[in-house]
């Protein structure tokens, strides 16, 4: 077992100073992503048409736009944590820092596009 005082270890504050937060959030977002991805799969199976007008109208409903936004938040948080672990396992020198910074840019940048697109559809004019 790592470094630190016994009390620090009991509190989960080892050398990383972060305890089990990362691990735990990976679990919490795994659970929320599970429900939201099942919702997405079921929604796709429930569509009768994939043309522009019907999908656009579908995403305009609050009952779709809100879970879709939650899905992006949950899944992006989940894979941001997950890919961090993968990077830490394989990258050991400065490339690790570069990769972690790029991962943050990728997640936040792509997530912003997703949320903007959802809101634009939800608040935009219908067809």
């Amino acid at each position, binding site marked *: 077992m790592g470094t630190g005082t016994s009390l620090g270890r009991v509190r989960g504050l080892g050398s990383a100073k972060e305890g089990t937060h990362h691990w735990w959030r990976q*679990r919490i977002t*795994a*659970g929320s992503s*599970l429900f939201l*991805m099942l919702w997405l*799969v079921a929604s*796709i*199976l429930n569509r*009768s048409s*994939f043309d*522009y007008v019907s*999908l*656009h109208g579908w*995403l305009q409903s609050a009952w779709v736009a809100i879970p*879709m936004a939650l899905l*992006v938040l949950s*899944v*992006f948080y989940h*894979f941001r944590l*997950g*890919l961090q672990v*993968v990077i830490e396992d394989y990258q050991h020198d400065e490339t690790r820092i570069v990769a972690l910074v790029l991962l943050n840019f990728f997640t936040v940048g*792509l997530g912003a*596009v*997703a949320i*903007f*697109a*959802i809101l*634009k*559809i939800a608040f*935009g004019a219908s067809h």
Partner: protein
Amino acid sequence: MASRTPARPISPHIQVYKWGPHMLVSILHRATGGVLSTVGSVLLVWFLAALAGGEGSYATFRDVFTHDDGRLNVIGYVVGIGITLALFQHMASGVRHLVLDTGAGFELKRNKTGALATLLFSVVATAAFWLYLGMK
């Protein structure tokens, strides 16, 4: 690692182990997680942005994956089946992870059965998903 004394014995690495389903499922969880994070998230956001951009940009998105009559083309099939298979595999092995986290399921036989069950689930769920969509 710099701190390791060279004279110390090191543990045998993966090439000396007999492959079992648990190893396959373990590495598949990582591989599918990586594919979903990159290809999967880009596809989802591309779809959302194309739909938000209007009829023209959505048509461009759709044309990449479908023929003019609306059926999937080769790219549509490869990407569609690939991403759903990855999703269902990661979903099943992810749930298995959560079960193992409670300390359950580490007996040799149950562990092997659980690993095999995730592979079975992903193949069956992917087939069911596309057959159902195809029949509509």
